[in-house]
C-alpha cells in the first residue's frame, strides 16, 4: 500500500485554494468580464470540440463560428426589431395603468380583509397598509434596479471579445499547465479536472438548454394566445428557470396577471397558468432526466442558499456564478473523498467471482 510520501498533498491544495479564493474576493470586480468570458467560452467549447474532433483547425472554427453568430444576430435583430420596439412602447405606455390597476386591486382586497379579520379595524388597516406599501414600493423600484444593471451591458461586447481568446487558446493553456505540474501529480490533477468538467459542464449546458427551451416555448405560446409583452414574460420565465420551480411560478404569475389585466377574465389568466404548468411538467418529464443523468444534483434549497450567499458576497457576479461554484464545491468534495478512500484503501473491493480459477 502507499506510504505518506505518495499521498496527494491535500493540505497544500487546500491552502493554495484558500489563498486563491481570498485573492479573488479582493479583486472580483475587476475580474468580472474575464470570469463571464471564461464561462461563455466554457459553455461554447463543446460546439468547437465537436467540429475539432472531425479534424478541423480550432482557430478557423472559432473565427467561422463568430462570423456566423454575428450574421445570425443581425438577421434576428432585423426580424425582431419592430416587435421589440413595439413591445417596449406598449409597456412604457401601459406601465402606469398596470401600477394603478394593481394598487386598486390591492386596496380592494385590503378593505375586504379588514372587514373579515377579527381585529380592530385601525390595527388591521395599519398592518396591511405597511405590508402592502412595502410591496408596492419594491414594485416601483424595479425599473431603477433594472437600470442599475445597464452598466453591465458594457460587458455585452467585452465578454465575447475576451471569450474569443479563451476559446482560441484555452486548450493550449491547459496543456501548458499539465506540462508545468510535477509529473507525480499529473494523473490526479487531470482526474480532478475531468471530474469537475463532466459534472459541471453537463449541468451548466443542461440548465442553459432548459432556459432557452422555456423562453422559446413560452414566447411562441404567449404570442399565439395573444398576450401582450410576450418577450418580457418569456425572458423572465426563462431566466428564473435556473432555480427549480421559479421559472414556472414567475411565468404563471406575471403572464397570468398580464392576461387578467388585458382580457379582464379569470379564464384567460388560468390558460396562461396552465401553459406554464404544462411547460414545467414537460421539463420535468423530458429534459430533466437527460440533464440529471450525467451531472451533479443540487437540492433546490442548496440552490437558493448558494444564490443568496453569492449575491450577498459578490453582488451580480455572485448571482451568476453561485450555482457553478456550488457544483464545483460538490465535485471537489466527491473527488477528495474518492481520493482519500482509495489512498487509504477504504475502497478496495475485488470483483465478485475473483476466487474462481481461470477456465
Amino acid at each position, binding site marked *: 500500500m*502507499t506510504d505518506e510520501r505518495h499521498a496527494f498533498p491535500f493540505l497544500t491544495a487546500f491552502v493554495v485554494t484558500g489563498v486563491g479564493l481570498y485573492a479573488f474576493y479582493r479583486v472580483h470586480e475587476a475580474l468580472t468580464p474575464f470570469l463571464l468570458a471564461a464561462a461563455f467560452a466554457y459553455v461554447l467549447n463543446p460546439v468547437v470540440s465537436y467540429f475539432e474532433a472531425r*479534424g*478541423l483547425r480550432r482557430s478557423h472554427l472559432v473565427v467561422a463560428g463568430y462570423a456566423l453568430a454575428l450574421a445570425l444576430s443581425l438577421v434576428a435583430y432585423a426580424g425582431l426589431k419592430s416587435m421589440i420596439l413595439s413591445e417596449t412602447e406598449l409597456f412604457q405606455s401601459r406601465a402606469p395603468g398596470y401600477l394603478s390597476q394593481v394598487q386598486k386591486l390591492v386596496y380592494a382586497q385590503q378593505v375586504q380583509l379588514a372587514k373579515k379579520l377579527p381585529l380592530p379595524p385601525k390595527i388591521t388597516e395599519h398592518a396591511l397598509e405597511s405590508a402592502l406599501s412595502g410591496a408596492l414600493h419594491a414594485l416601483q423600484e424595479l425599473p431603477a434596479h433594472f437600470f442599475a444593471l445597464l452598466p453591465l451591458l458594457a460587458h455585452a461586447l467585452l465578454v465575447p471579445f475576451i471569450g474569443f481568446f479563451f476559446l482560441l487558446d484555452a486548450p493550449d493553456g491547459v*496543456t501548458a499547465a499539465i506540462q508545468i505540474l510535477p509529473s507525480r501529480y499529473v*494523473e490526479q490533477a487531470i482526474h480532478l479536472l475531468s471530474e469537475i468538467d463532466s459534472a459541471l459542464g453537463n449541468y451548466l449546458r443542461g440548465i442553459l438548454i432548459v432556459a432557452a427551451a422555456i423562453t422559446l416555448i413560452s414566447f411562441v405560446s404567449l404570442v399565439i394566445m395573444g398576450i401582450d409583452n410576450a418577450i418580457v414574460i418569456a425572458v423572465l420565465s426563462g431566466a428564473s428557470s435556473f432555480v427549480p420551480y421559479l421559472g414556472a411560478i414567475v411565468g404563471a404569475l406575471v403572464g397570468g396577471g398580464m392576461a387578467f389585466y388585458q382580457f379582464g377574465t379569470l379564464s384567460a389568466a388560468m390558460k396562461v397558468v396552465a401553459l406554464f404548468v404544462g411547460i414545467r411538467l414537460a421539463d420535468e418529464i423530458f429534459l430533466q432526466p437527460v440533464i440529471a443523468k450525467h451531472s451533479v444534483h443540487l437540492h433546490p434549497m442548496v440552490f437558493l442558499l448558494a444564490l443568496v450567499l453569492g449575491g450577498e458576497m459578490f453582488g451580480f457576479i455572485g448571482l451568476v456564478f453561485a450555482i457553478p461554484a456550488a457544483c464545483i464545491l460538490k465535485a471537489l468534495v466527491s473527488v477528495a473523498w474518492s481520493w482519500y478512500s*482509495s489512498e487509504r484503501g477504504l475502497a478496495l473491493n475485488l470483483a465478485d467471482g475473483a476466487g474462481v480459477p481461470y477456465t
Partner: protein
Amino acid sequence: MSALKSFKRWFLDPQFSRKKQFLRSLDIFKDLRDRDLGHLVAALHSRSYREGEVIFVEGDIGRALFVLESGEVVLTRSVAGKEPVVLYRLKPGDFFGEMALLESLPRSATATATEKTRLHLLYKSKLDALLHAEPRIGVSIMSHLARMLSARLRRLSADPKLLSSKND
C-alpha cells in the same frame, strides 16, 4: 477540384491528423472508425517527460492509461532490501497502466522515462464519458482490454513456474 482540396487542407489540422494516424497504428484502437478516432484524440491529454522523470510510483492510485508516442519508459518493481527489478522496457506504440481504466487500485510498478518521452493519457472519467456519448469507442477499447487480460491470465495459468513461484 484542386482548389477544393487545398481549401480542405487549409481547414484541416495537421497535428490532429498526425495524432489520429498514430492512434490508428495501435492494436488497441485499430477497430475504431475515423470519426471515433477523432473523438478519442479529443479525449486524450498529452505530456512530455524528461529523461529520468518518474511518471508514476508503485503504490500510487491509477487513474489513466498511458500510450507511448516516442521515447522509452521502463517499468520497475521494488524488492525489499534490493535494487528495483526491471519488469519491462516500453517502446513507441506500447501502452501501460491499462488497469486504471477498470479499477482505481494501486499501481503494481513504477514507470520512469529513460529518455525524452512523449505520452498520451486516457482517463477513466474521460473513457466513461465516451462510453455514454460514443458507446462504440468504449466497447471496442474494453473488448480489446478483456482479450488482452484473458491472454495474460491464460499465459499465467499455463506456466507452472509462475504458478509455483506464486504459491511458494
